[in-house]
């Protein structure tokens, strides 16, 4: 479990670096329909592998591009505490849903 002090983008970049060090994506970085220029929160699950996972690389690179596309249009606003909490909550719920899915086969 690694907490990245920063925003959605910082998490994506950290994940990309991990992917390049042979970590494998378990969850899709763009999970959920909340757009990357809205929520400052993002949880992504990875697993250590032996070789670079090609699919993970493609997906994380595309995700970063998608993030950049949205951020170019309009950057993430400075939200009020109440909204931030809601974004946290949705991220948590999506994260829990990921954990649920993983526990199905591990």
């Amino acid at each position, binding site marked *: 479990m690694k907490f990245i002090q920063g925003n959605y983008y910082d998490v994506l970049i950290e994940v*990309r*670096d991990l992917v*390049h*060090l042979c970590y494998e994506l378990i969850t899709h970085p763009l999970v959920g329909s909340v757009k990357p220029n809205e929520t400052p929160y993002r949880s992504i699950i990875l697993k250590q592998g032996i070789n670079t996972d090609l699919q993970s690389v493609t997906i994380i*690179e595309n995700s970063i591009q998608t993030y950049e596309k949205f951020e170019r249009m309009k950057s993430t606003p400075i939200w009020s505490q109440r909204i931030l909490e809601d974004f946290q909550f949705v991220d948590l719920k999506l994260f829990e849903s990921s954990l649920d899915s993983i526990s199905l086969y591990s």
Partner: protein
Amino acid sequence: MIKIVHYINQFFAGIGGEEKADFKPEVREGIVGPGLALKTAFGNEAEIVATIICGDSYFNENLEAAAKEILEMVKKYSPDLFIAGPAFNAGRYGVACGTICKEVQDKLGIPAVTGMYIENPGADIFKKDVYILSTANAATGMRQAVPAMAKLALKLANKEAIGTPYEEGYIQRGIRKNIFREERGSKRAVNMLVAKLKNESFETEYPMPDFDRVTPNKAILDIKKTKIALVTSGGIVPKHNPDRVESSSASKYGKYDISGVMDLTEETYETAHGGYDPVYANLDADRVLPVDVLRDMEKEGLIGELHRYFYATVGNGTSVANSKKYAAEIAQELIKDGVQAVILTST
């Protein structure tokens, strides 16, 4: 009446060909060269108040200064419309037309139009930003190009709605625009399905990004006599990055002499790539660009020769247009230097 400033190169101004391509920007009151044809096409609706002439080499070699200078000239006339070219298949003229049109549009807020042959490198670079009328590949297409350009230009000046590339004749800009079609989406999908089943033609509404392919070149017959060059998109550069190749969104590439270099070491080379953890490449750049191994093989006579220069860009964030342009330039130089095969490494 709509006031127009027209931009042309030294050739169309009747000043001369390649030998005069270093001609510096100059403004002339009224019409010069192809402006005559535009005048006929515009009739009484618009008037060319000034023509700016600039040599193609001058423009491309002094891109920023030339653009600035020309922008000032345009500003003086405060026109309603700016037209450049048409440039047909003249590459540097095309780049000049595209650059200056974009500048005029962005900085002065004046609508601009140019014309080019679809394979003109300027078309690829600027089609997103500027309306580029699709023309023939040579000046003999002037007669067809000018009326269409004039029509499109007038529409822009009058702020009329611009139709599709097919209707207006401009080069597809790659911009997605919402439209309403005759049938609802599900019906269109069923129609497409039936067409596909019957092997009839259909048109996808969203073409996938370019999957353009190139036919492979012939294999090397005698590798022992072959001059091989190294190219990398992994951003390997001499220590401290003398050319300032950018860590991402590369706007240039580096060309580095490795004659006498047997091994890339931590002290001498590093990576400028921003897309991956640079520690390993910085410790030993051979991990990205295998100079050490190729030198050994050169010594052992397993390859003919390692080319004395290697080329480096960073892959990530580089625009397709830029990377195409660099690669084309690099390839030309390599061929000129007698290189017969290339090893390209990417991270």
